[in-house]
């Protein structure tokens, strides 16, 4: 099976809240001293693909749409033994999901025939969670979201996908090709690349395509979607003591207070 895994580079979401700042004019997060890292759900997606390949064979191509520096997340994918890596160069910051989906779709078509495209369920920076669905639309294939694993199916040209739902899980069978958005699960915790593979990752070939090569107009990077306002919500904490003569009276007063608060939210 040919699997394509989409990988996004994001600002490290683990930085201390104190160090996180946003530029409210440009409507984007400030880089500050934060590292750029691989989006965790993309790592889960790659791990899912690696496990599938280990069991069933096949080929994994990692693709990212981003600036030159996004090469790093692809190098990491190569260190984890993705077979190939493609970077679609887009220097526009905060390109919107539809633009990214169109770009990735063009890149994936250029890579060649595929059976499954795995993407993270959402990115840890904006958390929009739209790229997977939009990408499926662009590629004209079905999409299964919130999947935690991928299994072969007895039927040829099909896969079994286990997806999480609000009430439990579903096991679906789908014809390939398809797009699957991957969520985290104890079975797809990303493995740690081994030292030798890390060293070799920067020696492996990595393909770079420009937007022009894919026929994508860079000026459309922010034309489908607009962030109207970006701010860090201010958290205010207050400590209030509930009084009352008896325990029941205190509980009653407390319950009223909580409902009042919820109403005013």
């Amino acid at each position, binding site marked *: 099976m040919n699997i394509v895994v989409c990988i996004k580079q994001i600002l490290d979401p683990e930085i201390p809240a104190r160090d996180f700042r946003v530029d409210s004019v440009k409507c984007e997060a400030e880089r500050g001293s934060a590292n750029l890292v691989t989006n965790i759900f993309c790592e889960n997606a790659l791990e899912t693909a690696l496990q599938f390949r280990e069991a069933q064979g096949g080929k994994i191509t990692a693709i990212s749409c981003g600036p030159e520096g996004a090469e790093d997340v692809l190098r990491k994918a190569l260190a984890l033994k993705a077979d190939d890596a493609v970077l679609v160069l887009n220097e526009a910051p905060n390109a919107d999901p539809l633009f990214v989906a169109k770009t990735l779709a063009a890149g994936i078509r250029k890579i060649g025939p595929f059976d499954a495209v795995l993407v993270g369920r959402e990115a840890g920076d904006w958390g929009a969670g739209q790229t997977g669905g939009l990408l499926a639309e662009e590629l004209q294939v079905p999409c299964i979201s919130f999947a935690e694993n991928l299994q072969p199916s007895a039927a040829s040209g099909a896969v079994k996908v286990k997806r999480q739902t609000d009430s439990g899980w579903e096991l679906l069978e789908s014809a390939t090709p398809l797009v699957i958005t991957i969520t985290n699960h104890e079975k797809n915790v990303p493995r740690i690349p*081994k*030292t030798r593979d890390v*060293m070799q990752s920067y020696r492996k070939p990595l393909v770079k395509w420009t937007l022009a090569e894919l026929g994508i107009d860079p000026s459309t990077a922010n034309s489908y979607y607009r962030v109207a306002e970006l701010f860090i919500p201010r958290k205010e904490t207050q400590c209030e003591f509930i009084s009352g003569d008896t325990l029941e009276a205190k509980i009653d007063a407390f319950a009223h207070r909580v409902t009042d608060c919820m109403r005013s939210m």
Partner: protein
Amino acid sequence: MAIDELRETGTEGTIPGTGFTKAHQLFRESVRRFIDQEINPYMDQWEEAEMFPAHDLFKKAGDQGLLGLSYPEEYGGAGADYWYNMALAEELARVKGGAIPMALGVQTDMATPALNQYGSHKLKKKFLEPAIRGDAVCSIAVTEAGAGSDVASIRTKAERDGDEYVINGSKMFITNGVQADWICLLARTTPGTTFKGMSLIIVPTDTPGFCVSKKLKKLGNWASDTAELVFDNVRVPVANRIGEEGQGFIYQMQQFQNERLISSLGAAAGAEKILRMTIEYCRGRQTFGKPLIENQWIYFKLTELISEVEFLRQMCYHCGRIMDRGDDYTREASMAKLKAGRLVRQVADICLQFHGGMGYMEEYPMARYFRDSRLMSIGAGADEIMLGIIAKFEGIAPAR
């Protein structure tokens, strides 16, 4: 694949003036994940038990490729440049305590460098390869009850009997000593002579006559096992000798340089970590209506120490550059080691002070750091020994 080829591809250094490339950066990230998954969750438990599962942990580290970074691929190493060892040393400061970095450091940079450099192919296949894989735990045994700083006066002897050495004596304060599968032993192979009569010999610990006579209790680094070892007519093949007979002292002195560099760099990273933690603590802690950090004495002192840590780190990188040129860095490594020993004592003292009573409590990492860091001025050559070496290089020491 050699790292030199890697550099040729033009991957830029991520820290200017060092040998760290982006691949090193990615390597650091893997080390961090390894520590967070395989070491830190168990640190408290291991400290309390005064023991860690060396075979289990080293196997995992070996599988990950962490135990033979700069050793040849022929023996399972990664064939990497020494900057990988340095990156590892820095990242190991993330471990919650000094015990495991010390135990790992013994395996990778203290007990094995001489074997790698001077050992025969057969000896390396038999002992280095399993150490790199993590299938064998090893120790370096130099110190004796009667000879620590004065290495030249060790008394453990290895007498030749046909194709074998017969070893008698004892060794003291040996890291990994309780769990080791083999020991890199410095013993006297020619009686009566001074430093010229010594050899490094590999002794498997299942050889009859070898015994761990005592597991020692310590001030710090509790999770690491430290042992007193006894050799009672222990017979090993002469082929277990590393390199030439009589060269052991010289090899050991060279081996010490790796140890000193790696431990100094680790000390710099560890000191920085504890300083950053202290800064956070002082930001959050209020006294007399303002955060502690707003007292000039406190932020000046912390700033000064951070600056000194940076000097130390840069000195270690400087050693790395000298090593890259293939030159001797004994002088600089000794300076770094001296500075590291002195600096961590100061950092531990000041940071604990700024934590107040909390610093004295076991529930905070501070107390452990205070205990563990004290070793830096003693192990791998005490501060005064470093002073002696540097004084010699500088021509200040009086002629003997």
